[in-house]
Structure formats: structure tokens, C-alpha cells
């Protein structure tokens, strides 16, 4: 039995039919991690209890008890999602060695479904980055070409999943951090509608934008993982009470008559010809499958990048104020205590504990929220955000989903963009508006660049309409050029 190609449901069935044990399946993946992770640096921590948890699952199966939908499925979890007993550092020195005393709600849901947590995954520090290059724990590499970035901020999740060190992973997306790395690494990633997945236990970057979601190898697995982690949580006051659809049961590649919107504002001369070619092919294929295309316009998407960076930096400056070295996390060492005051205690700790990009964004956010600038910057951006949402709600009356590239280029080389922060921010041109409007978004792999790097297609839906993007992705997956291809590091 080929363990690498097992979908979640197949793995669960194989366990129930006793074709394989949870211990064997878990050991298989732990061995892959041991063998391949040194080349990728996708994992920041590996669970020491995964095998015993698998053994417990095997006893449960042997005793005839029913098992959850994700039974035996080995998951890697992005480091900023709290896992009881496993370090959760958010890719930062500030939380080095921090071991949460609780699981994030989404982790608890995965465990309740009998998934096995394999370890924690590398990421840009506090989710601030698009390449995994700001991680305190070192760069992570793209399995398709290790000289290239896996994307970010969920770089470790994408890298681990593409190289099949995991059966599934969880990432988070604030401005594209699930969709962009999924795109760069040739896997499926979905950012749910804001409020679908509880943020309790997800270390906060920008509270009105953050959402966690699955980064996996197939659309069917994405659907199953999504319905498992969605749901109202009393511990997250922004979590939606909408009932969770069983996305996996309604998955269908029949998209005849579905209206797909093409954004006028996304026709960019700056889009790489390989990306454009793969995108054009997806349009042609979807037409053959009976989808109808509509040209739409959301003029304010042109401002999505500055809006996103302004709003997220502002929210981050507030969220990261809690890291002060008092009750947990990094604390600076002080030799001369006689002259020490509280302000210096905080400033030294934070100055040493946070990396440059995090400090930049905290300062940006502090400036935009400060007296004399709040109205012109943060408040103004929030007003424009309402107008952007209104524009999206209008066009979703004309179409069911929006189709676009995920990024203007495939993955870039490690070091290529890290010197210029603004250049790095402009990478997010196609993804940030989704978070601003709280919409659902997905990346599904569809083709390759001429030098063998994956290229995906982005699908965006209105609030709570994830079934529609899952179905279009499912249709694209069947005819994707990436099917059956494996990366260089595998």
C-alpha cells in the first residue's frame, strides 16, 4: 500500500480495515521527517508523543470504538498555533521555548477527530513575511527547488506538505499566508471566511484579518479538514454561529452554469508569462466544463496592499504589546540593576526579542495609531475597507466565485527580495483584499513554470460560500498538470 498517496478518508478506512496500524502510519511519516527535514527546515519541533498517541488510537480501533473523520492522519501545525506540550514560538526568539498549557480550539478539534499531531512548522516571525525568511529559526526551503523560498508566512506548512513529511498541515492567512505558499509549493490551501475557524489559541497578528486553514495535498482532504476545524467557539468572540456545511459530502466537479468572475484590475502587464499561461489554460478548461465567465470590476483592490499593511501593522502593534518579558517569553538580561526602570526593561526585552521586520511593523502600526495620525491613517483605511467590502458584495451578485492568479510570479530565490521591505509587500497584490473583506479564498495547483516551479490558481468566494470554491478547485484538480508530479526533495 502506497502510504504517501493515501487521502484522509483512505487512511482512516485502512486503519479500520486493519490494513495498517496508526503506529505504522505515524512512524512512516516521522521517518520521512527525520530523513528530509534537514534539507528543508520545515519543522521547528517534532512531537515526542506522536507514536504513543497513535498506539492509543490503535487500542481504540481494536476495541471496536468509533473513530473520528481524521483517524490516523498525521498533521503538522504552524508554529503560531498553540499546541499543549509542544513549543509554540510563532517563528520568534520572543517565544523561544514557550510551551502553551493549552491547545488551540482548532487543534482540539483535530485531536477529537483522532488526527495525530506530528510537530510544529516553521514560519515567518509572527506571520510577518511572504517567504519564511524572517523566521528566527532559519529559512525554510521549497522542495521543488531548495534554492527557492516556499513562500510565507506559512512556509514550513507548505514545504512539509509538498515534500509529504505530513499528511496534512495547518497554516494561517492574514494577507495571503496560506494561499501564497500553497501556490509556490504546489499544494492546496484554503483560507476560510473570517469567523469560520476559531482564533482561540492562534497567536494573534492582526485580529480582524487572521484565519487558520488547512494546507493539504488534495481538495477532498481540504474539504474534510475544513469542516473538522470550523465551528462556533465561545472562546472566540468573532467566531461565527453559522452551521458548518459538510463540505466533503457536497464536493462536486460539476460546475456547469457556475458564474466565474475575472477581475479587470488583475489583468496586469507585470504578471509573469508562465503564470499568465497557466491562468489562461485554467480559464479555457473551465469554459469547456461549462462555467460562464463574467468580467467584473472591484476598483478598490488597487489599494489593497497599502490598506492591508496599514491595518495589519496597526493591529499587530497592539497585539504584540503583550510581549514584555514578565510572565512568559524572552526576557533581556540586565547586569546593572541599580539604574533599571520599567520602560528600559520592556524596551530592551522587546528590542532583543523581536526581529527587524516585526520591529518595522510595530513601529509602522504605532505611528498610524498615534495621536495626530489615527484619523488620517488607521481610521481612513477602515473607512476604505467598508467601501471595498461593498464593492465585493455587489460583484458577488453577478458571479459565484472569482478566478485569479495567486501571485504575479512563481517562487523567487532565497535572498532575492529580502533587502527591500516594500518590494516584498507588493508580492501580496492578489491576496490581501480577500482578508480585508473577510472572504473565503483558496489556492489549487494547476501547472508549472518553465523552470519547474508550481503555479496555482486562486479562487475567492463571498462570505460562507466555501463550497463553491471547493467545487471549482475540485474540477481544476482533475485536469491539473501537477497531478502525480513530485518535487525534487521527496
Amino acid at each position, binding site marked *: 500500500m502506497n502510504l504517501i498517496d493515501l487521502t484522509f478518508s483512505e487512511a482512516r478506512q485502512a486503519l479500520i480495515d486493519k490494513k495498517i496500524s496508526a503506529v505504522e502510519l505515524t512512524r512512516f511519516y516521522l521517518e520521512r521527517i527525520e530523513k528530509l527535514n534537514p534539507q528543508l527546515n520545515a519543522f521547528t519541533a517534532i512531537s515526542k508523543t506522536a507514536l504513543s498517541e497513535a498506539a492509543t488510537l490503535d487500542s481504540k480501533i481494536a476495541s471496536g470504538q468509533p473513530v473520528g473523520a481524521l483517524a490516523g492522519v498525521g498533521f503538522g501545525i504552524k508554529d503560531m498555533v498553540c499546541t499543549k506540550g509542544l513549543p509554540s514560538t510563532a517563528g520568534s526568539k520572543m517565544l523561544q*521555548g*514557550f*510551551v502553551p*498549557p*493549552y491547545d488551540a480550539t482548532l487543534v482540539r478539534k483535530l485531536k477529537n477527530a483522532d488526527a495525530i499531531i506530528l510537530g510544529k512548522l516553521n514560519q515567518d516571525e509572527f506571520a510577518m513575511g511572504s517567504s519564511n525568511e524572517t523566521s528566527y529559526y532559519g529559512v525554510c526551503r521549497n522542495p521543488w527547488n531548495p534554492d527557492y523560498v516556499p513562500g510565507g508566512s506559512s512556509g514550513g506548512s507548505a514545504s512539509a506538505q509538498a515534500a509529504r513529511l505530513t499528511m496534512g498541515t495547518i497554516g494561517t492567512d492574514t494577507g495571503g499566508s496560506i494561499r501564497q505558499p500553497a501556490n509556490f509549493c504546489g499544494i492546496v490551501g484554503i483560507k476560510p*471566511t*473570517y*469567523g469560520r475557524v476559531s482564533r482561540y489559541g492562534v497567536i494573534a497578528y492582526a485580529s*480582524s484579518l487572521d484565519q487558520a486553514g488547512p494546507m493539504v495535498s488534495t481538495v477532498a482532504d481540504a474539504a474534510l479538514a475544513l469542516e473538522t476545524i470550523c465551528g462556533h467557539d*465561545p472562546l472566540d468572540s*468573532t467566531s*461565527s*454561529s453559522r452551521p458548518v456545511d459538510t463540505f466533503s459530502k457536497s464536493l462536486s466537479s460539476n460546475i456547469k452554469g457556475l458564474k466565474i468572475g475575472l477581475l479587470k484590475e488583475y489583468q496586469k502587464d507585470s504578471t509573469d508569462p508562465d503564470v499568465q499561461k497557466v491562468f489562461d489554460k485554467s480559464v479555457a478548461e473551465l469554459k469547456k466544463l461549462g462555467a460562464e465567465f463574467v468580467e467584473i470590476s472591484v476598483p478598490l483592490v488597487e*489599494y489593497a*496592499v*497599502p*490598506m492591508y499593511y*496599514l491595518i495589519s501593522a496597526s493591529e499587530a502593534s497592539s497585539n504584540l*504589546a503583550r510581549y514584555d518579558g*514578565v*510572565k512568559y*517569553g*524572552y*526576557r533581556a538580561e*540586565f547586569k546593572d*540593576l541599580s539604574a*533599571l526602570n*520599567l*520602560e*528600559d*526593561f*520592556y*524596551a*530592551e526585552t*522587546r*528590542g532583543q526579542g*523581536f526581529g527587524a521586520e516585526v520591529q*518595522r511593523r510595530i*513601529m*509602522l502600526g504605532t*505611528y498610524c495609531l*498615534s495621536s495626530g495620525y489615527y484619523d*488620517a*491613517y488607521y*481610521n*481612513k483605511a*477602515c*473607512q*476604505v*475597507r*467598508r*467601501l471595498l*467590502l461593498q464593492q465585493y458584495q455587489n460583484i458577488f451578485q453577478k458571479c459565484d466565485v472569482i478566478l485569479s492568479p495567486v501571485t504575479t510570479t512563481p517562487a523567487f530565490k532565497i535572498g532575492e527580495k529580502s533587502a527591500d*521591505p*516594500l518590494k516584498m*509587500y507588493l508580492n501580496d497584490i492578489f491576496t490581501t483584499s480577500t482578508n*480585508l*473583506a*473577510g*472572504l473565503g479564498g483558496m489556492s489549487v495547483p494547476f501547472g508549472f513554470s518553465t523552470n519547474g516551479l508550481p503555479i496555482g490558481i486562486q479562487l475567492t468566494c463571498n462570505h460562507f460560500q466555501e463550497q463553491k470554491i471547493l467545487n471549482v478547485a475540485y474540477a481544476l484538480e482533475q485536469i491539473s498538470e501537477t497531478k502525480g508530479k513530485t518535487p525534487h526533495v521527496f
Partner: protein
Amino acid sequence: MIDSKKIEHIAKLARLKIQPENVQQYSDQLSKVLNHFDQIAQIDTTGIEPLVTPTEIEIFHRDDFAEKQFDAENLLQNAPDRSGNLFKVPPVVG
């Protein structure tokens, strides 16, 4: 637009110690980014309420009784320094 003096002021507000040799670089980088933000100013937002939560806001209530979630010991596990059930810090107050 954001000179070194301003950087020092913002760093103070944010309780961030910036090394003197990095102040100029941060000033250049932040100025560039803020210039990029300025394009938002030209959008007409007369009479528009700011939006923060992008989906429907729902109010949930719970019964008003205390629930125990953690032991003090759990919460002290990650303390940089402790003394019994107390978080220990250097003498910074008073």
C-alpha cells in the same frame, strides 16, 4: 518624512530599543512604506463608517459563574523567573 527623531519617538511609544546604527535605515524604510500608504488619502470616504470586523458581528452571552480553567502551576511554567506562585522581576518599580 519620518526622520530619526520621529523614529526615536515611535520606538519609545512602542517600548522598542532601536540600536543607534539602525535608526537611519528604519527611517528610510518606514518613509518609503508610508509614502505608499498615502495613496489611500485620495479616496472619498465622506459619511462612511469605519469597518473593522468584516463579517457579521454576533453577541454571545454566557451564564455569570466562574469556571476554573488552569492551575497556577500551569501558568507559571513559562515564567522567565519565579518565586513560589509569583512571577519574579528585577527591581523596576519605585
